[in-house]
């Protein structure tokens, strides 16, 4: 997977890395602007990521599908308003198509929550049902389900911003600068969110029933 390249200009400027390349999706965006039917390439590239993000936020497959559909329809109809800000001289708030798309998804999910009066804390309590079983390897599948369930629960117990930052980092594999663009926060604030979120997950895993993790965290084998 192609990832953004950061311009690291030494310790004096490490607090504000910038995306130093142009948007990798630029050719596809230009093609979609000329011919709206070409938007399908962008859709195929990001549909799983947007759906996964929506599912982590809403905790319901149908709601995640609705949010995904609204996100892509809105992106298609408003594509002409997309403004790329991926160069260092563009300053803060770097924005690529991916960042812009996730901003739309995040806003749509927030509206969905407001309209349905859902509680902001997402309920992530049934990951095993969402993981496709492997009938050829039942034992390994059960272990995988347990591990996924413990990671799922640990992330689900975090406050909203920390959970959102971790999901965007580990599931959607966005960079810190991209997460900052999606969440409307500074990169430093996102780094602190990630760090504190990971500490919370570590505490949850160590304090949980997973004895293996507890031993490993204490330096055992």
């Amino acid at each position, binding site marked *: *997977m192609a*990832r953004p390249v950061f311009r690291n200009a030494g*310790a004096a400027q*490490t*607090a504000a890395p910038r995306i130093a390349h142009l948007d990798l999706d630029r050719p596809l965006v230009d093609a979609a602007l000329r*011919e*709206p*039917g070409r*938007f*399908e390439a962008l*859709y195929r590239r990001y*549909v*799983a990521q947007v*759906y*996964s993000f929506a*599912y*982590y936020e809403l905790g319901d497959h149908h709601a*995640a*599908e609705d949010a*995904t*559909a609204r996100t*892509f*329809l809105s992106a*298609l*109809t408003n594509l002409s308003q997309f403004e790329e800000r991926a160069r260092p001289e563009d300053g803060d708030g770097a924005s690529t198509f991916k960042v812009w798309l996730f901003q739309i998804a995040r806003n749509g999910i927030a509206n969905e929550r407001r309209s349905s009066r859902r509680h902001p804390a997402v309920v992530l309590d049934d*990951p095993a049902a*969402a*993981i496709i079983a492997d009938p050829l390897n039942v034992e390994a599948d059960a272990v*995988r389900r347990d*591990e*996924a369930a*413990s*990671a*799922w629960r*640990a*992330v689900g117990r975090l406050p909203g911003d920390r959970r959102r930052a*971790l*999901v965007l*980092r*580990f*599931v959607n*594999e966005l*960079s*810190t600068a991209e997460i900052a663009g999606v969440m409307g926060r500074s990169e*430093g604030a996102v*780094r*602190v969110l*990630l*760090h*504190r979120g*990971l*500490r919370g*997950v*570590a505490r949850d*895993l*160590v304090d949980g029933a997973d004895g293996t*993790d507890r031993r*490993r*965290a204490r*330096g055992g084998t």
Partner: protein
Amino acid sequence: MTLLGRDVVEVDALVTDRYLDSLLAAADRRIVPADGPAAEPPRRPWLLSGVRRGLDPEFPDEGVRLASERLTRDLPRFHPSFRFEERLAVRLAEAAASMRLPVAAGGEGASGWTTMPQPIRGLGVDPLDDLGDTAPAGSGPRPLLFGGAVAASALSLAGAAWMVWRRSRPSGSPMARAARAAHAARAAHATRAARASHRPSTSSMRGRPA
């Protein structure tokens, strides 16, 4: 502001972020099949960055490293169903087509253009069925573009031509053949009856006085 002058949490967060960059990049390298065997991630990736050199070598702490590795490996990724994905692709194609229409009209906008649903038409279906006013609900998703007065004139001419062609070529269906046979029989019977009524009978001539 120097790195050492920062808040401790920000420094820890910065180092954690660098570690995550290395961890996820290593995961990417393992996923993408290269020509040779996949490269193993460095055991202490933050030492390679130069920023952490000379600082605490045990940073980030074991808990953060464990949590990062667990989330990288175990946090599930979800994919929508194939049916939903294809259905949304069709909706996007419809929306894209509707966006394309004003452009296709030469920048004249939507005025003068009419979109109407194009029914999914199989072979052997009477085209006359589609000329009614009511289109079936849920018919074909792709819009069909008609352009104003030119299209209306073309439709009228086509309709007149079709009616002429239809009358010159009677249908070959059994029902039509039976109807034509019955009609012909009724016509022949009426003709015979008319001739019989106009012909004078011999009995009446015979009884007529001379």
